[in-house]
């Protein structure tokens, strides 16, 4: 093996080494891009996530209806006055993720609670009307939610989120669109 001698000045080899190395690094990054990008939700999946219209008229007071938007479970709950009152009477200091009930429903339509149906801990489906607050109880890891879908105890870090939705009229909403 020939000994490489340290040149006093940069040689053509030094230049080629740096230039090729830099070009190679850019090339590897560019080649890696499609391999990572293909993991993202594909066009079909995105298209299937179009807004959905929900007819509220058949949902009786006190009832919870489950439906899917973008493959994610949504709870639509027609709350009774007592349930609304229970949610509103709760002091914000008692909450892990403080949020007033008013901020989670639309004004004038306080009975309609529309929330994602997967526990914010690890994604299980909480059971309806269970737990000490009459909201939901997650059987997987024991998170308890109140009648506003807010986390009251257990490992879930945040409240069940409210998806974007708007009222078309009194009897219909569109989930996935905002007013």
């Amino acid at each position, binding site marked *: 093996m020939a000994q490489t001698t340290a040149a006093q000045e940069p040689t053509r080899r030094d230049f080629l080494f740096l230039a090729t190395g830099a070009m190679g690094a850019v090339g590897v990054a560019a080649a890696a891009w499609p391999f990572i990008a293909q*993991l*993202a*939700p*594909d066009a079909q*999946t995105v298209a299937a996530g179009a807004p959905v219209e929900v007819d509220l008229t058949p949902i009786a007071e006190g009832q919870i209806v489950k439906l*899917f938007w973008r*493959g994610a479970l949504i709870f639509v709950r027609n709350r009774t006055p007592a349930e609304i009152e229970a949610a509103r009477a709760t002091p914000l200091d008692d909450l892990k993720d403080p949020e007033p009930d008013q901020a989670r429903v639309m004004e004038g339509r306080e009975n309609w609670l529309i929330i994602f149906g997967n526990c914010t801990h690890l994604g299980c489906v909480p059971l309806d009307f269970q737990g000490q607050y009459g909201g939901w109880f997650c059987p997987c890891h024991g998170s308890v939610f109140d009648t506003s879908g807010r986390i009251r105890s257990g*490992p879930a870090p945040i409240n069940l989120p409210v998806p974007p939705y708007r009222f078309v009229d009194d009897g219909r909403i569109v989930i996935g669109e905002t007013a």
Partner: protein
Amino acid sequence: MSSHPTTYVPKSAAAKWLESRLPIIGLVHSSFVAFPVPRNLTYFWTFGAILMVMLIIQLVTGIVLAMHYTAHADYAFTSVEHIMRNVEYGWLLRYMHANGASFFFIAVYIHIFRGLFYGSYKAPREVLWILGVIILLLMMATAFMGYVLPWGQMSFWGATVITNLFSVIPLVGDTIVSFLWGGYSVGNPTLNRFFSLHYLLPFMILGVAMLHVWALHVPGNNNPTGVPIKSGKDAVPFHPYMTVKDTFSIVCFLAVFAWFVFYLPNYLGHADNYVPANPAVTPAHIVPEWYFLPFYAILRAVPDALFGVILMFASIAVLAFLPWLDTSKVRSGSYRPIFRVLFWAFVVTCLVLGWLGSRPAEGIYVILAQIFTVLYFAYFLIAMPLLGLLEKPLPLPNSITEAVLGKKQASGSGMPVGAAAEPQSKG
């Protein structure tokens, strides 16, 4: 695969021809025939060979099952039932594969606890040990993704819970999870990529396992005394001593495996996984496969999601640091009176955590899980560093031979130690 030069001499012309071009027979000969192993290895040292057999069983049954399985959310469940009902011996192949995963973990846990007790992770075997931790992680990923493939209720909700672990990462968590899913929830794209990776990872395990064997064959086997081989008297050649011991152990292990495959094929599984996946209903009681239960208990012990996930991964990662956390110079637990007690306490801790992982996450179970999580980490982070400094180990034997035969015989018939001529090393 070792630093020992091969003693293999090819006899036939064909062997000579091959050996001068690719010395592979010599490599196998020096690694698995002439390779010197301590003369005092017990059956606890046969689990490496058992694991190699289990890996091959999983690869062979898995490749065959993949010929009949359909990786699609609409067909996966029925294709598994098709394997069970229509494919010739499909029931046997699937039960071998499903129970094979459990028995793979039984063997690997025994293998790991043997290493923990006899200090097999200590210098000069740190790299060997870390490669083992990497294999364990790959095994867990493979087993988890394999469990998703039948697309039953436990498959679906197990996948949901485990992929959601990554959602707790601040800022990028949700993006990472949607990239794992290929959608906005666990669905067909998730199943497809899990199938692809479930096929890939076992070959990566095979690759790392070869590095593991290579790293083993440089320092050689640890042994129940922890004292290294000092002379040829301490060692026996791998063949026939270890080959027969390994083979006998493999046969006994496979007999128990066969008992499960034929008589208790669903004992280690969950009935809920015979219900097709339903994203609207979570099974009343989600539990992972038994081999994940201790880690699941640690995850649930913590009321904070992010910290719980970190702690669960840390419970495995901490193993990789054990060579440096254990400050004792003595390898074998047999010569460490306090360590021995703590080791068994640690074994019990792991078993209790496993039991707690199978209980619902409420009331006393959560408190117990918290206590035993602390005990689990205390073993690595408090007991191991301190014990090496505080404990007074028992006197070590001068050699493996002395430990086996006693001082008198080890030094020959009445002659003082070292006076007898060294017999020629068989290795």
